[in-house]
């Protein structure tokens, strides 16, 4: 991870590999660091995994008021660090941002992968509140096998505060209205046992994007890239390299 200047601030970023660039946007807890799935993906492409504003050691999110500001922040990274279209993959909160990015910046989005993503709200299937859920229930909601929790870094203070900008009190900022504007070929990946975001949400996301495909990974909860790493990497590479 290295600190890199961007605009008036600084972003911590894991940037590795060579080839067609993939922008990875992390979930609400924390940046995954040099995780296995990222290093494997970086063997065949350049992976750019920035930390979100307000997280960890990156600059505060203060000037970024809403989801459009957040998307423009991503656009700046892509324009300055790549200078052309990228593949975009987002997990959880990062999936919500990735989908918005694809809708608002189609000229910079080659292919889109959404993993256990927030962004929608289904009235007949309300999501659990990730900020209030009891620790034991949270563990069960996140992982098919609770032992997998040890493989995910713990969030540092301030991360969840930054996440509340988009997830509080309902993790929805109008994405459903903008999904039809997504032009990039899209793969929606979801852990079968995700208790934070049920599979129905993945189906709804895929249903909102023309031509999107939804694939459910068994043996995984909210972190399929950790709990089902092989299947996850294969699915992502298969999709990205198909076009």
């Amino acid at each position, binding site marked *: 991870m290295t600190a890199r200047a961007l605009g008036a601030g600084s972003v911590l970023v894991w940037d590795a590999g060579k080839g067609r660039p993939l922008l990875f946007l992390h979930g609400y807890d924390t940046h995954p660091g040099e995780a296995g799935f990222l290093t494997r993906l970086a063997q065949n492409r350049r992976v750019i995994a920035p930390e979100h504003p307000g997280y960890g050691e990156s600059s505060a*999110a203060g000037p970024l*008021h809403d989801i459009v500001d957040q998307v423009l922040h991503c656009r700046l990274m892509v324009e300055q660090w790549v200078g052309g279209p990228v593949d975009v993959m987002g997990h959880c909160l990062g999936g919500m941002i990735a989908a918005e990015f694809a809708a608002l910046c189609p000229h910079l989005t080659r292919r889109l992968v959404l993993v256990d993503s927030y962004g929608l709200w289904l009235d007949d299937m309300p999501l659990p509140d990730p*900020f*209030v*859920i*009891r620790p034991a229930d949270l563990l069960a909601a996140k992982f098919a096998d609770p032992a997998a929790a040890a493989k995910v870094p713990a969030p540092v*203070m*301030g*991360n*969840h*505060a*930054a*996440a*509340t*900008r988009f997830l*509080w*009190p*309902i993790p929805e900022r109008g994405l459903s209205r903008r999904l039809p504007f997504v032009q990039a070929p899209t793969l929606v990946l979801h852990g079968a046992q995700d208790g934070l975001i049920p599979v129905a949400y993945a189906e709804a996301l895929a249903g909102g994007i023309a031509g999107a495909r939804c694939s459910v990974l068994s043996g995984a909860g909210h972190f399929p890239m950790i709990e089902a790493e092989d299947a996850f990497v294969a699915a992502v590479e298969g999709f990205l390299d198909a076009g």
Partner: protein
Amino acid sequence: MKFHWFAEASYPDLPADFREAKISSWVDTPKRLADPHVVGEMCRMFIRLMQQADRDGYDGLAVNEHHQTPFAVTPSPNLLAAALAHTTERAAILIIGDSLALYNPPTRVAEEMAWIDCLSQGRVIAGFVFGTPMDSVFAYGIPPVELRERFEEARLLILKSWAEQEPFAFNGRFNKLRYVNLWPKPIQPKFPIWVPGSGSVETWDLTIDNDYCYGHLSFSGLHAAKPMVDAYWEYVARRGGDPNPHRMAFTQILCVANTDAEAEATYSEAVKYFYRNRYVNPAFEGPPGYRSTKSVQAIMGHRKIAESSVSAEDRAKAAAGELDFWEYDRLGYIIAGSPERVRQRVRELCVDLRIGQLIACLHVGNLSEEAGAMNTRLFGHEVMPHLRDLWIEHEDRWTPQGLAEIAAKAARGAAA
């Protein structure tokens, strides 16, 4: 030294096993436990007790705002303030306060306080609060990281709407108003403003920068409060702020009776009811982003000092309503006993913490109206007059300036 009558309007009829059931008393407390007729009678009782406090010589009648909780069924303090403004004559109407971030647009606060000021002939104290996390970020859904900015924008808008004599446009981040033009305008040219807090350094800066009265409103007792209040005064000194004791308000539960034995017999169960039934799901008390890292660290420091004077066991028992009545008194959660005893203890408290505005909690939990009336009368007649000499050398700029005149007018009216 000023005394303000206050009570948390606690729902008095929770089931005996409420605490054991581990039901959160805030945010998602089951509504099936609420009887609207009980709430109605409770509200009428509080209005009667505060009318009595007005006659008994209290300087202010304090009303507050909480949401979705049987701990305090007062969703809009302005409603209760309006009822009191119309049916009392002397005391300040201490609105402590309106949760600025929750009013949309916040000119609603400016309008209602101005209206109550007109109705009460200029007796309003304007309190601005952030609201507890339970109220502001859970019940009303404000993202915690936005709370302070929303508060600040609302505060500036409200102050300008009181001060400006011509219509103006306000282009804020959260509020866009093309024509702000308050009707009615308040009687007081400048409201006294109070801001309560729970130890956040940012709130201390706000009160020092603007010469507001700071309120430490907690029910955790003298020992928990002392490190925080001491730190506040040190901070004021360091920042070159005004150390006038009248800019510090403090809540204290009081249980006055003719004898110490009568105090225990009268108030013990109500005090235990109050503490026992204030269990809040910890997740609702500490949402991410509600406090800055700087404040979290400072508060942890104060807490550590406080914890050295009260054992963890005593704290847990106090919060569960399981301490002996006189243990609550010894640890400073309450001040109880005969008027002589209470006089002495309140004096010590106010001197020790440098408090010029005591928010006297004279009804608590499921106390009967009769006991609340006795408490109000004894404190008002047997305690307050003996403490009026405190801080007399300091000018009180944080209560309405016309109060003495209003009281004299009311007295003349009564005599005629």
